[in-house]
């Protein structure tokens, strides 16, 4: 299938009325979620995950991808109008977007953000299709040893690029891997860490953990800022279409933002935050009048917003071609695929082309829907922004309970969800990032399977992991980073002890 045929095939799938409806609903719900501060795309996807069990795999994935992309766009509305980022990727938009709104230019800020998101999303979708083919062909030659090395390197990179310290991210990821181990061992049938509890023999349900750590944890964390006053821009929003001068200033930041977002979006842990920060910094550096930044420069909105949407779209490349999620929200998509019985990775294009091309084309359609939907509906989004969180969080809680209970009709699952909600909150308070924990838990079966399969093939000979150049290079990288993470703190202790001794003498 050449690329034109593949596009046409994907277009046919996504334009089936049901799939089109899922795409529309996903984009709408995503924007709604992005607009509401305190309810991130991860929480929304975790809440809707149990519902997707009743949908076709293509429909479910199209809807979840729509939520993800919609939330990325919706977050900018909150950033511009209220100066509160709807999700982490919109932090940079607050700086100049809100300043523009205060100067009575909320319309052009929202408009350029929509155009930037559309152009960035479309360019990156095109890049996805160009890269996906060769990458998946390359990945097919990967054996279990290479796959194990790749997964380890991906997880490690995620920890390395996390906003919290590397060591804490690593501890968090090992906690997730341990949680994934709980249950019956598929190789030997031996139960591991089940403590004789029958419901743990199948392992801990991923959706329960996701609902606890995204839903309940976010609610508990938001309780601390429950009564922070929202400062709305009160002027009427008009003139959503940017002027020619605005477009002239924005076109280069949009193009650069697309490339920055595409690059960082593909890296595990790169995500939207790094890409938006990089885009903002680059625009400021390249600007002939950097002093305008922070005071309502439209380039400061166009670049980061484009990078934000590009990055979220680019996150699909490693997921669909290599089976590696780049951030926790993409990991949720991976979880959805696994729950629906589909293995993401190099064989996805060959075995399930309808999913791959359907989801890719739904991103194009989703971007068009976002553009059509967001500009005329801006008034409604502003009204939704005024819903107080005190009313919103009990509803989220009830949805978490319904979602959890509906999995197995067991109250014990609700208790477990609450427990994970508390664990997530404690981890946040202790600066242990939750995302590596969740990603490691999702990836654990694949990591362990490829690890043990490699050893089983080689009759327990660990040299299997250095039998190929790819695996050797990747594992060398993993080993050196791990070694460094252990040595560095010890060296710091010795250094300070030496300094103290020197001072004493």
């Amino acid at each position, binding site marked *: 299938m050449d690329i034109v045929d593949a596009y046409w095939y994907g277009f046919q799938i996504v334009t089936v009325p049901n799939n089109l409806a899922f795409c529309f609903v996903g984009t709408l719900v995503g924007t709604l979620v992005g607009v509401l501060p305190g309810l991130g795309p991860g929480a929304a996807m975790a809440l809707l995950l149990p519902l997707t069990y009743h949908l076709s795999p293509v429909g479910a994935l199209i809807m979840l991808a729509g939520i993800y992309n919609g939330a990325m766009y919706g977050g900018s509305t909150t950033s511009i109008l209220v100066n509160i980022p709807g999700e982490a990727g919109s932090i940079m938009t607050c700086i100049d977007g809100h300043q523009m709104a205060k100067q009575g230019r909320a319309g052009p800020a929202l408009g350029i953000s929509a155009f930037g998101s559309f152009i960035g999303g479309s360019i990156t979708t095109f890049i996805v299709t160009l890269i996906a083919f060769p990458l998946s062909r390359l990945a097919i030659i990967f054996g279990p040893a290479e796959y194990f090395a790749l997964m380890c390197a991906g997880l490690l990179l995620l920890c390395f690029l996390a906003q919290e310290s590397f*060591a804490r991210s690593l*501890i968090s990821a090992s906690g997730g891997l341990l949680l994934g181990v709980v249950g019956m061992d598929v190789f030997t049938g031996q139960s591991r860490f089940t403590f004789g509890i029958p419901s743990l023999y199948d392992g801990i349900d991923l959706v329960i953990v996701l609902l606890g750590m995204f839903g309940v944890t976010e609610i508990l964390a938001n309780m601390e800022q*429950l009564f922070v006053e929202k400062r709305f821009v009160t002027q009427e929003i008009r003139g959503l279409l940017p002027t020619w001068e605005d477009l002239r200033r924005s076109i280069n930041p949009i193009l650069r933002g697309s490339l920055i977002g595409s690059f960082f979006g593909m890296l595990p842990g790169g995500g939207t935050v790094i890409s938006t920060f990089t885009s903002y910094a680059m625009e400021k550096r390249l600007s002939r009048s950097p002093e305008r930044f922070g005071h309502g420069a439209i380039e400061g909105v166009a670049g980061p917003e484009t990078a934000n949407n590009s990055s979220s779209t680019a996150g699909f490349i490693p997921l669909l071609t290599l089976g590696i999620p780049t951030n926790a929200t993409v990991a949720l998509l991976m979880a959805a695929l696994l729950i629906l019985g589909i293995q993401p990775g190099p064989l996805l294009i060959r075995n399930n082309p309808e999913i791959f091309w359907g989801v890719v084309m739904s991103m194009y359609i989703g971007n068009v829907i976002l553009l059509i939907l967001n500009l005329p509906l801006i008034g409604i989004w502003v009204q939704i922004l005024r819903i107080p969180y005190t009313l919103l969080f*009990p509803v989220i809680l*009830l949805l978490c*309970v*319904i979602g959890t209970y509906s999995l197995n009709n067991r109250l014990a699952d609700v208790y477990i969800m609450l427990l994970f909600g508390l664990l997530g909150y*404690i981890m946040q308070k202790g600066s242990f990032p939750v995302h590596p924990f969740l990603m490691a838990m999702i990836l654990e079966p694949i990591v362990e399977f490829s*690890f043990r399969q490699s050893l*089983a093939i080689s009759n327990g000979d660990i040299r299997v992991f250095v039998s190929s150049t790819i695996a050797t290079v990747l594992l060398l990288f993993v080993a050196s980073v791990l070694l460094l993470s252990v040595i560095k703190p010890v060296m710091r202790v010795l250094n300070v002890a030496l300094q103290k001794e020197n001072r004493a003498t």
Partner: protein
Amino acid sequence: MKRLDALLLVASTLLGLVVVYSAVGMGLTYHNKPGSGLFPFLIGLLMAMVSGSVLVTHIFRVGLSADATARSDCSGQKNRTRVTLVYALLIVYTLSLRYFGFATSSLLLMIVLLRCVGLKSWMYSIGMSVCVVIPITAVAVYVLKIQLPVGMFGY
């Protein structure tokens, strides 16, 4: 050193060691092939080593200021009380689901949350709770066909 930080690091170090011990009991090898305990053994070892090294660093009071992520958790005692209250209410709520069912328990939870946490009036709390819980329950039960916990009242 923050107390919570120290506790979490001690807990993760101990957890890592316990996992290593249990994994050895599961068997690291099985007929010349990797046993059930090998993977947990490696993960436990990694967890114990990294947590231990971070703990040691902190014990020596080195890098406390350098650790950019160590946020102060002294602020907002009042906010933490609110978090504790919400969590306690959630525990009571989940325990009550078995006896009062989803609809009644959720209605009570929402009234209490709106009144005690949201600081809304009784009338607003009751009215809003009825307006939210009944449609959610109806959609879940009749549209999505989800079986929700049924208590002594039968709903």
